[in-house]
């Protein structure tokens, strides 16, 4: 029986990109449905009534929500190909911990960088760099957070990298100057077809953020 996979998504979402990346890693065919978040489809509201957010994966009619939960689901169902989580429970716990860390910190700090000014923005930039440095430390000398191949933490974090140009531009700072090893890691990831085909063009993202700022009346 062929699997029916639908992804409800919004093109600039780094959370939606995580799911695209996981599906690409597993070589899965799926139907991509672009949502207009100002006019959410009846399907989205039916499939994610609790949060009404993207991404939502619909597998044979059953919805799964929350990007890291979706990625784990994909990893568990299609476990034979390109495993994203290690098999050892302790290594899995470490991967979950760091993916959770990315979730707790980066989105909010990134949002503050492009949407605030003055001291609030400076504080957000400083904290953001501190978080990236901590992640650099966790990466260490490994090619990927997952070791020799990309894993759960790589999927959780790399999708933010196409937002870096926007953060740098609106925050007036250089991430590469502060975290060269992390940028090297993003470039290494982008050499993979699954990553480059799942992430958006940083200039397009920059344009999107510019549009958001105008709409929100932030100069």
């Amino acid at each position, binding site marked *: 029986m062929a699997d029916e996979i639908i992804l409800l998504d919004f093109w600039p979402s780094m959370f939606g990109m995580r799911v695209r990346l996981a599906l690409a890693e597993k070589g899965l065919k799926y139907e991509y449905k672009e949502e207009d978040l100002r006019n959410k489809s009846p399907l989205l509201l039916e499939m994610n009534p*609790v949060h009404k957010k993207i991404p939502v994966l619909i*597998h044979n009619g*059953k919805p*799964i*929500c*929350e990007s890291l*939960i*979706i990625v*784990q*689901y994909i990893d*568990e*169902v299609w476990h034979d190909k390109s495993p994203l989580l290690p098999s050892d*429970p*302790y290594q*899995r*716990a*470490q991967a*979950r*911990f760091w993916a*959770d*860390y990315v979730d707790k910190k980066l989105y909010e700090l990134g949002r503050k960088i492009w949407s605030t000014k003055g001291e609030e923005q400076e504080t957000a930039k400083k904290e953001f760099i501190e978080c990236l440095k*901590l992640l650099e430390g966790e990466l260490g000398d490994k090619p990927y957070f997952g070791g020799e191949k990309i894993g759960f933490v790589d999927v959780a974090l790399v999708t933010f990298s196409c937002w870096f140009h926007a953060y740098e531009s609106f925050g007036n700072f250089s991430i590469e100057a502060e975290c060269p090893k992390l940028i090297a890691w993003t470039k290494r990831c982008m050499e993979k077809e699954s990553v480059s085909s799942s992430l958006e063009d940083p200039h397009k993202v920059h344009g999107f953020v510019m549009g958001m700022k105008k709409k929100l009346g932030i100069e």
Partner: protein
Amino acid sequence: MTEEVKLFGTWASIFSRRIEVALKLKGVQFEYIEENLSNKSPALLKYNPVHKKIPVLVHNGKPVAESLVILEYIDETWKHNPILPTDPYEKAMARFWAKYIDDKLWPAVTKVLVSKGEEQKGVIEEIQEQLKTLESELKEKKFFGGESLGFVDIAANIIVFLLVAQEALGMEILTEEKFPVLHGWYQRLVDDAVFKECMPPREQHLSSVKVWFGSSTPSK
């Protein structure tokens, strides 16, 4: 090889209580270390340098932090009496609801304790909406996990804190009249042999909450 399992927690933290429940459900022997959060031990700072928080589980010298991450680790390491379903879809649902509880209910519960007047009324309504949502997930089931306590029931121990808080501060948020389904589930939860052993001592919890949060004006 003998297992060495340590749990760093605090007596009032529902997050460290989650770990106690899971370890006891699995019959795992462990050493409990009570932390003083205003004077964190060098061990805690060493085992959780990123967040410096409890709970931390240390298994044969290796630390695991973040309560939901620890619960999954426990379930994968000690496989009997599973707390997560084996089916990937059911597992994803359990993770979804535990995350809902931590991302939505917990912040609202902490906010209701420090807000006043109109703002507090608004947060109370928010919490009641969330409780309705949880009731619609629970439906006719004995527990969120089905016939026995599972991952979501353990995560929902926040409701223990909510009930203590509402009594301590004279608020009415979760009542039997408004939430008969959740109320029934709660009675079964605290009746469970393992769960009730792991609850913070009630009188102590009540008086501590009064001391920590008592300056807020209660609303009905």
